[in-house]
């Protein structure tokens, strides 16, 4: 019985490509990223092309997703954060679509690779840091000096704040990656139980109903996790943006 729950995460080169010694092959991971971007574009462009005053079903979906993110940005980062709404919206839609695409059978989950989530988290981290310095110059360092701390403790507190700041992209990326990886492994392991049990004959078939129920329930849970993790990633992006725009806490 060879069921390998890790097989689904294998990267395969579809179009080998080598640019100056860097392996830039078009992989299955890249294929699903392109598919997600294409789907998002189709979804957003065609659903709002009708521009009806009374929105239809599809247009409502597009408007709901816009309002959802717009409210999130306003709540977390204030009105000034709306300037960065496009990137926040893109991040949310990309992660959401990539997560949902990963739930289809035989598909590949891009966010189950830490390099992808780390790239996303690091671009947010550097982007937010740059915005902070561009807006406030050296005043951005106020972020590391909380109010009302005794002078004697200040060096330690500032060090801790700096480490805390640098730990952001780590937790930001690990959370998304770990959730997707763990969820998909659990799904495959339980699906493997069904095959393993059913090879035992009639009793096995009866027993295989239990993991089958689990798989159905887990798929529903994964659907929730796919949305929730996209949401959490975006909320944190907004919070970091807020720190960059208003460093004085």
């Amino acid at each position: 019985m060879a069921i390998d729950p890790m097989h689904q995460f294998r990267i395969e080169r579809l179009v080998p490509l080598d640019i100056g010694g860097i392996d830039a092959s078009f992989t299955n991971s890249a294929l699903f990223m392109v598919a997600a971007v294409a789907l998002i574009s189709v979804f957003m462009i065609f659903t709002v092309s009708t521009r009806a005053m009374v929105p239809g079903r599809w247009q409502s979906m597009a408007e709901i997703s816009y309002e959802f993110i717009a409210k999130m940005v306003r709540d977390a980062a204030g009105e000034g954060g709306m300037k960065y709404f496009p990137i926040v919206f893109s991040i949310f839609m990309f992660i959401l679509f990539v997560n949902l695409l990963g739930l289809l059978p035989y598909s590949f989950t891009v966010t189950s690779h830490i390099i992808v989530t780390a790239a996303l988290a690091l671009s947010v981290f550097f982007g937010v840091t740059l915005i902070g310095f561009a807006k406030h110059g050296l005043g951005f360092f106020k972020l590391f000096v909380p109010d009302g701390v005794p002078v004697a403790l200040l060096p330690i507190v500032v060090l801790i704040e700096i480490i805390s700041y640098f730990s952001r992209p780590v937790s930001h990326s690990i959370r998304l990656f770990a959730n997707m990886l763990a969820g998909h492994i659990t799904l495959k392991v339980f699906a493997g139980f069904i095959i393993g049990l059913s090879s035992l004959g009639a009793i096995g078939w009866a027993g295989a109903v239990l993991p089958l129920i689990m798989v159905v329930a887990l798929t529903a849970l994964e659907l929730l996790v796919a949305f929730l993790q996209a949401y959490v990633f975006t909320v944190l992006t907004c919070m970091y943006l807020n720190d960059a725009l208003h460093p004085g806490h």
Partner: protein
Amino acid sequence: MAYGLRMATELVGGVLVGAGIGFGLDRWLGTSPWLLITFLMLGFGAGVQNVLRATKKMDSERDRAPPGASGT
């Protein structure tokens, strides 16, 4: 599960980054293992700080949210 994993990654993130900085500085300055130990402690502090901050944020979000709406 989302709550728990969030807290876990906040804490682990702080410790990992602290240890990483300490290890790097040790390598660079040749003071092994003292900076690693110091920054591991500081990293732990940063991790706890992260968790406290995240909890506070979640609490305030839950208080602000209308009844019936679930938070993160």
